[in-house]
């Protein structure tokens, strides 16, 4: 089973009519993943014994019987969950994440867990204990990260939709690199219960799919209040599909000049400018604006995310679950050896940075200062959203880079995130929608809106999708 030409709607119709059986869909999906994943390595765990839910109700549940890929930092009861780390490579959760509970209620099928950068730290899916994932557009290139496995699985047609998580761009950047749609909802829209924490004030679960509508359908299912997550909003969740098939006349679109500077590759800029022109011609009002603190978002983000991560990852200590070093003689050994052997290089770097930025003597200059600059960054957005509905720009400064190209230069890797991390710092909904190709590789257009205004993000993304029909393109890198 290959999903390149399918949508949730088309699958639902075939399942409802009996043209397709959910059992066959499941086994064919697993078989196709196994056949194609030798090229991609998009999955950490594939469930051979995957089964659709019982008593499927196709009329009530649009996702009934449809396999959805789950990033391997979201826990499923009884199913190994590793966060792509050696320290959890034998870990079997004993409870379900809230998004899983909701997908179960909607009768979706789980066929496995997708590859990622270890603990979601990275933007290339090269930092995985289970090896790098390859980009279906060009197998020598990275799929982006950290939700690179989910992105490659969707782009290659292994699944119709996937869950990812986004702390600094981990859904949008791989979506851009793989020529698919990916949305990070507003912080507080989707429960984080069961998402293995990286940066708790930034993390948000979101959806990736080829088609905008499919993400809207999945987001409808996973959003909303949850008693297990005190940071999740009690606001009512709209039907996100109602924002589709709308025109953009009169829509106020801000384009920050900092997002269209020379540091963005010319090919990427041209593709994005083209889409902005399309919007202008359709009656949208385009305003050039400024986000003056853009140059500080990378340090602000890396201080806050790493500080929170350094604390969140302390629980991986070899005591209650996960990897315990074999030769530990005393308690300190258990801690130090289990962690030093269990974590990869990039995770250790972030833990070290975070321990440093929180430590006595550094806190004021680093963590506290970053928390203040975060306020200034939020203020910049508030000002723009006073007069605009959405902010547009490229999702990334370049298209997908080569595997191995940047892994030895962490700073360069960090700077790649400059366009995506503001949405996490400010808690805004943001998505990447395909904006054509440059040099044979996909370009992403990023759309951001006010908190809890996913509606406008979907409206613009859907409009762009209807104009450029990028979903018709087939990833060029896959061998048949």
């Amino acid at each position, binding site marked *: 089973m290959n999903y390149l030409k399918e949508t949730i709607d088309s699958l639902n119709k075939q399942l409802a009519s009996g043209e397709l059986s959910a059992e066959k869909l499941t086994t064919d999906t697993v078989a196709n993943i196994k056949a194609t994943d030798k090229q991609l390595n998009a999955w950490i765990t594939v469930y051979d014994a995957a089964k659709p839910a019982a008593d499927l109700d196709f009329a009530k549940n649009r996702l009934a019987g449809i396999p959805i890929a789950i990033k391997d930092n979201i826990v499923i009861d009884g199913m190994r969950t590793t966060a792509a780390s050696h320290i959890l490579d034998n870990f079997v959760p004993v409870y379900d994440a809230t998004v899983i509970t909701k997908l179960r209620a909607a009768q979706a099928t789980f066929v496995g867990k997708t590859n990622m950068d270890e603990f979601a730290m990275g933007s290339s899916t090269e930092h995985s204990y289970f090896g790098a994932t390859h980009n279906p557009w060009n197998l020598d290139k990275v799929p982006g990260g950290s939700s690179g496995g989910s992105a490659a699985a969707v782009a290659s047609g292994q699944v119709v939709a996937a869950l990812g998580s986004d702390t600094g761009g981990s859904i949008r950047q791989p979506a851009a690199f793989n020529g698919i749609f990916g949305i990070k909802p507003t912080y507080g829209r989707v429960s984080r219960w069961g998402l293995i924490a990286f940066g*708790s004030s930034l993390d948000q679960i979101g959806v990736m799919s080829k088609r905008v509508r499919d993400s809207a359908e999945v987001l409808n299912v996973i959003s909303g209040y949850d008693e297990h997550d005190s*940071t999740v909003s009690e606001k009512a969740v709209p039907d996100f599909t109602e924002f589709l098939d709308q025109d953009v006349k009169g829509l106020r679109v801000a384009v920050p000049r900092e997002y269209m500077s020379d540091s963005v590759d010319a090919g990427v800029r041209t593709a994005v400018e083209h889409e902005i022109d399309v919007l202008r011609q359709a009656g949208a009002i385009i305003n050039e604006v400024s986000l003056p603190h853009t140059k500080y978002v990378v340090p602000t983000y890396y201080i806050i995310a790493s500080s929170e991560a350094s*604390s969140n990852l302390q629980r991986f*200590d070899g005591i209650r*679950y996960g990897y315990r070093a074999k030769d530990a003689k005393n308690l300190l050994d258990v801690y130090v050896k289990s962690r030093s052997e269990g974590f990869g290089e990039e995770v250790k770097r972030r833990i070290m940075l975070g*321990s440093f930025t929180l430590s006595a003597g550094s806190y004021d200059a680093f963590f506290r200062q970053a928390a203040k600059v975060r306020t200034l960054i939020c203020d910049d957005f508030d000002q723009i959203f006073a007069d605009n509905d959405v902010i547009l720009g490229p999702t990334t400064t370049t298209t997908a880079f080569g595997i191995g190209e940047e892994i030895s230069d962490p700073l360069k890797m960090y700077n790649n995130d400059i366009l995506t991390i503001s949405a996490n710092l400010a808690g805004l909904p943001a998505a990447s929608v395909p904006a054509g190709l440059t040099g044979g590789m996909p370009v992403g257009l990023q759309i951001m809106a006010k908190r809890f205004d996913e509606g406008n993000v979907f409206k613009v993304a859907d409009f762009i999708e209807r104009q450029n029909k990028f979903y018709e393109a087939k990833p060029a890198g896959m061998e048949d």
Partner: protein
Amino acid sequence: MNFKSTIGFEVHFELKTKSKIFSPSPVTYGAKPNTETNVIDWGYPGVLPSVNREVYRLGIMVALATNSHVLPVTHFDRKNYYYPDSPKAYQITQFLQPLARDGYIEVEVHGKKNRIGIHEMHIEEDAGKNTHGTNGFSYVDLNRQGVPLLEVVSEPDIANPEEGYAYLEKLRQIVQFTGASDVKMEEGSMRVDTNISIRPVGQKALGTKVEMKNLNSFEHVRLSLAYEEKRQRQVLLSGGRVQLSTRRFDEATGKTVLERVKEGDADYRYFPEPDIPPYHIKDAWVKEIAASLPKSAADRFADYTGKFGLKPYDANVLLQTKESSDFFDAAVAAGADPQLAANWMNTQVNGYLNDNRTSLAEIALTPAHLAEMITLIKDGTISSKIAKKVFAETVTKGTSPKAFVEAKGLVQLSDMSVLTPMVKAVVDANPQSVVDFKNGKDRAIGYLVGQIMKQTHGKANPVAVNRLLNEELQNR
């Protein structure tokens, strides 16, 4: 050279909730290891805390009872440290925006009243328990992980160990009477850390602080502080320097022993807990809690000694625990004479509890029973002697005193038409007693009362018999 001591306390109270502070696991005492835990308590990957409202409510009660200012905005922080009983390797506590600040309580030492300041109080989670084996391993039980704690930090206002002792007694009483905690040191629901420094009189800067943690009793606190005062004075007088350190009290020798030397403060890397948004405490809620506060021990003392006319000693015995004070209040409310109720509580009832190592909550006697029995004594239906029999029945079986007295025919004989001839007959039969009485020997009456009691199987009303005998003997 004269020295001045500066003593401070950090007291942890376990708040009396049914479930933990950040997870719904039950709070129990003495359960099998790791049976009262869930994924939150274990710090499983992906879990998040959710705050128990009752923890705030109980904390606010204590804040109000100690004249503290409840802060309008509270926020949790993470205190990072590795230990096997700390599953997340951080404790969720309130570092910068605690529940309340700037309170005080009043203590009295040798008739002198003093106000001791409370710097702040905050709510936080307890850790699990480690048991250290002798075989090179330690064993971790996470049942206690997440039990809610209220930490009360005093100002370093306390001048001497006696005042420190008085502070702890008063604080325990205040907290106990809010009902927010069991305050049992032996079960760990009240835990005391103290610190003391001394400096030459006249010197402004405080001396170097020595800490003592988890002391077993108030008496140990007093003894260890007294020992430290003396030890530190000797160190300074001999030209030495007090080390910033933690010491422990050695019960056997009565001395404090160095446990560890501190090199500056540990680096806990506190930062705001990102998983819990702030909480704004609304005035209306604080008012509602204030209105629901149980009467304080001080107010009860005033009532007992004023309205009820009890002796301060008796009042204080009743006020030793909230349970006994509540029991007494309920008995009085049910119609018991306060003085008689106090006597019974402080002698018979307490005696029974001590002899049987039990508590008011576990015995069959209710305040209504006690009131009923006291009414029977007061209206002359039963004698004090019979009352003891009744008590023995009620306290073990919960039988109604009135029903028991009626069923067993224990009603006191007060009928004059029966008693008068009986008295005459006894005096007639004992002429020597009349002689003794005339010679001023009071014992004579006692003997005659005994005879009548014998004849009536103890049911005769002793007051009435005494009066009748007196009259009869005078008339002879």
